[in-house]
């Protein structure tokens, strides 16, 4: 069962906290919007990922559990 970070591009306003908290999975494009990697989040990064989800000012991130 893999955990993946996903962004809702409609609610995302480009704050950029996610890229600060989890640079292993999120980088910012030239317009300051997050490019979220489809790679699964390993267990050691999960607390940071969860923090990114909670701290996002726009609540635009979610953690998906698939397969």
């Amino acid at each position: 069962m893999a955990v993946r970070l996903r962004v809702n591009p409609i609610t995302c306003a480009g704050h950029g906290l996610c890229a600060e908290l989890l640079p292993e999975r999120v980088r910012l494009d030239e317009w300051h919007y997050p490019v979220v990697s489809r790679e699964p989040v390993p267990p050691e990064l999960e607390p940071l990922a969860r923090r990114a989800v909670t701290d996002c000012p726009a609540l635009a991130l979610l953690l998906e559990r698939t397969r």
Partner: protein
Amino acid sequence: MTGITQSTALWYASRATGVVCLVLLTVVVLLGILVNRQGRLPGLPRFAVTGLHRSISLLAVAFLAIHVITAVADKFVTIQLIAAVVPFTSSYLPFQIGLGAVALDLIAALIVTSLIRARLGRRLWRGVHWLAYAAYPVAVAHSVVSAKDLRSGALLALTVGCVLSVCAAACYRLAAAEYRRRLAFPGWRLGAGR
């Protein structure tokens, strides 16, 4: 300690923590607006701005708790504990204390919803969070009508300073409904990175 001295200590504690609470709430509102406008504090990452906004709000809650407890514990005036949450039920100065209760209820709603914001979902959390713009004026009103010493001297200056800064920040925030880091597309920026 005689009864009167103890009462005076509690009385001062209540008023002092009240003032601190007001200042902290001011900082919280300013930080909240800074987060919304995607602003930064020099030398700090963005998650620190949100972190500070959260930490200082919890600190404000702590001071609010002491403010309420000392006011209730003070035997010189009769303020029931219940009057701190149910507005306008205090025996002493019901209106003034009642305003404080309203502010406390609103702040409680803000804090609780923010603690579970990821579970609550964006719409619900955001809807409640707008109440901050109600909680702050009510808290100020409570302070001004309850404490005579806020109406003169240094404390007046402090109060006025707090209120003016929040007003200015609020106007700035409300002027642009939703902040999106979108650049008004300028054709001549082609070739540049951003």
